[in-house]
């Protein structure tokens, strides 16, 4: 009788370990999948292209607010100030979320754009404002 109880216990233990290992495996896979979409290279590229397209479709006088919370978190992790992650020079957008990399994408709209972090709520600065000033003048 005693022996039988011990055997059943061993079977149960094996099953528990098996289930725990499976759960661990699935959790690692899920974390891996979620982490992949939040890498600096992917985020830099998607922000740069998104901002370039928004500027292309914009007209002078517009002020566009873009949420960059994910970018801010990643930049902070990589010791980069939030007010330095977006730069616009000429007709190209430069996004920098890591020390070693950056992503540049150009736009065709010949406008003068200024961008700065949205500080309307100083406790929660997670967005950028893009101000479309005027069309560039040509001699």
């Amino acid at each position, binding site marked *: 009788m005693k022996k039988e109880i011990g055997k059943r216990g061993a079977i149960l233990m094996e099953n528990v370990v098996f289930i725990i290992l499976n759960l661990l495996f699935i959790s690692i896979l899920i974390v*891996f999948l979620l982490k992949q979409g939040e890498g600096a290279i992917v985020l830099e590229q998607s922000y740069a292209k998104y901002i*370039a*397209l928004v500027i292309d479709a914009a007209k002078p006088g517009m002020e566009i607010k873009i949420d960059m919370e994910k970018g801010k978190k990643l930049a902070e992790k990589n010791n980069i100030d939030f007010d330095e992650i977006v730069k616009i020079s000429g007709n*190209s957008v430069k996004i920098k979320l890591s020390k070693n990399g950056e992503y540049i994408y150009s736009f*065709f709209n*010949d*406008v003068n754009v200024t961008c700065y972090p949205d500080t309307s709520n100083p406790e929660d600065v997670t967005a950028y404002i893009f101000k479309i000033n005027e069309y560039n003048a040509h001699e």
Partner: protein
Amino acid sequence: MNKRGDKLLSIYWFAILVLIAGGIFLMVYNFYNHPYDVREIEAEVLINSVADCLSSEGKINSELIYEGNFSEEFEENFLEKCHLAFESEVWELPQYYTEINFYNSSDLDSSVFNITKGNKNLVSGCVIQEEKEYEREVKCVEEEFFSFDENNNLYLIKILSIVRKTEKNAK
């Protein structure tokens, strides 16, 4: 015998887990290793910008057509007039091309005026893709609309826009 069978089963199970993990890793790596392709949207936005410049509220821009005559000066300075910058410090050659054809509503086969700006070498990319689309080729979008001039003559305006930027949008 039973224990041996269990052992075999767990090795088999482990092999399946490794296979699944490897497959998922490869798929994810392959997915994120490809850049987002936004060229088609970009070409559509370019068409919208050009259309806004040529016509407003169904009337052709008076700088472009005056008393039935198309302005050569507008054609020459089209990029400045429409506030477009096809040159960029990021690219050695222009990555855009646009072609606009105007047709009189009474004869939709031959264009009465046309404007072409940008990198003309990109046009061949559209010809290649007439039957099949290639990821590493240019993206071509064409739209058309009708608009009146000041004398209420109706014109069909066809706009073709091409965006290259292959290195940033395709692998």
